[in-house]
């Protein structure tokens, strides 16, 4: 503390050497006023938003992909009108979400649709989840379609209905096929939570932004959060790797 004050005076008077400047900047970025707490809270919010968006995204993706696959696999002459309506609606959803930038969607969600809400993180999670759902649905749909058509035929030829065949035979096989792509999507999602700082969601990026705007010093806050994101993603990748290996181990049984 005293050292900081002394060296800060040197910096102000322009007599500090490089090391002393570094020390002062680092201190300002992380220590002064317990700023590390802001980063920590930011990480907490980032993880929370990621988890919520992930849950929403996977749920949406699952529903959309199953409806769209079921629509495509209907027997000719036995078309379900409700399925047609849902399929049309979901197609528009995927087109709109994939066709507009994430940032624009966030702005519209935060500043137009939920303009009166003060819970920025929740609004951000909602926007991210809806966005992720569109991409996840296509990933899952690809997985469902990649399962050999003979599996569906075998299930149906035994007299099982479409839903049971999907649930017990097709979906378990699809999950294994899509896990790498899904992991990719999760990583993108984790990093995209940094965008919710534009609607004042107080996540990790927001911490770097507010701190640097007070100290007029950008190096440490931004390199700092970059390292934290990298660490989080590496952790995520590691966990996913374990999960994948476990699934693959079941192949060799």
């Amino acid at each position, binding site marked *: 503390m005293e050292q900081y004050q002394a060296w800060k005076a040197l910096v102000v008077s322009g007599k500090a050497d490089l090391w002393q400047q570094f020390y002062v900047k680092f201190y300002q970025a992380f220590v002064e006023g317990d700023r590390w707490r802001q980063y920590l809270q930011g990480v907490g919010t980032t993880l929370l938003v990621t988890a919520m968006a992930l849950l929403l995204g996977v749920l949406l993706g699952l529903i959309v992909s199953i409806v769209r696959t079921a629509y495509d696999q209907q*027997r*000719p*002459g*036995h078309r379900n009108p409700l399925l047609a309506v849902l399929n049309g609606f979901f197609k528009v959803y995927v087109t709109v979400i994939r066709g507009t930038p994430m940032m624009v969607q966030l702005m519209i969600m935060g500043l137009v649709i939920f303009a009166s809400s003060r819970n920025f993180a929740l609004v951000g999670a909602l926007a991210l989840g809806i966005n992720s759902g569109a991409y996840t649905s296509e990933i899952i749909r690809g997985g469902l379609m990649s399962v*050999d058509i*003979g*599996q569906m*035929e*075998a*299930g*149906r*030829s*035994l*007299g*099982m*209905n479409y839903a*049971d065949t999907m649930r*017990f*035979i097709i979906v*378990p*096989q699809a999950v294994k096929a899509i896990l790498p792509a899904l992991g990719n999507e999760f990583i993108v999602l984790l990093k995209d939570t940094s965008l919710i700082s534009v609607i004042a969601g107080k996540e990790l990026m927001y911490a770097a932004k507010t701190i640097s705007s007070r100290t007029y010093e950008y190096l440490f806050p931004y390199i700092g959060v970059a390292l934290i994101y990298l660490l989080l993603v590496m952790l995520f990748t590691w966990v996913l790797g374990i999960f994948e290996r476990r699934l693959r181990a079941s*192949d060799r*049984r």
Partner: protein
Amino acid sequence: MIVVNKLCKSFGKLEVLHNVSEHIEKGECVVLIGPSGSGKSTFLRCLNLLEEPTSGEILFDGVSMTSPSTDINRMRQKMGMVFQHFNLFPNMTILRNITLAPTRTGIMVREQAEARAMELLQRVGLADKASAYPAQLSGGQKQRVAIVRALCMQPEVMLFDEPTSALDPEMVGEVLDVMKSLAMAGMTMVVVTHEMGFAREVANRVLFLDGGEIVEQGDPHNIFYNPQSERLKSFLAKVL
């Protein structure tokens, strides 16, 4: 048992089956032969509506398969099917492969299905594989399991779609033996195959399809030793 009336099936512009009519009686073993692309497999797959007929009628036990009011799942439970590529479910054990459909469709409780599955596995000599996964089995073993899986539903008719075509030659025999004993036991069977020996030996009736029509049919002896049509003669000349 199965009545096919003026069945037509087209894929886009390509007409695969043209006005096929046929009766299959209870206890019969009907074998379909013919060159590739003649519509044999399509005909078989139309019987349990894996292919939707373009026009025509299929009656099974007097119930129209194609009618929109027919519960197709219920009908399929009475028609077992065995595929060229086995189509076992790789994500579950052999026992689960066999018991999944009977338990999910509610025709048996789990213990019942498992007991029946074990008994059938015993009969095809695979009881020791019950807890194995499909990837651990040879082709011939997989196909025998596939037959057991279909049989466990206690079907009234069994449909075989080239059941030995994907097998190594030395495994063909074990599958044909199972099918033969099934036919001897009086199961109604419709078999698409290139195994002329099986057709000759086991079939009650042989249908020769070519160009989407039944060109000639009769008992195996007449089909193989006294063919009438030119097309059948030239086909037999190639395969025998």
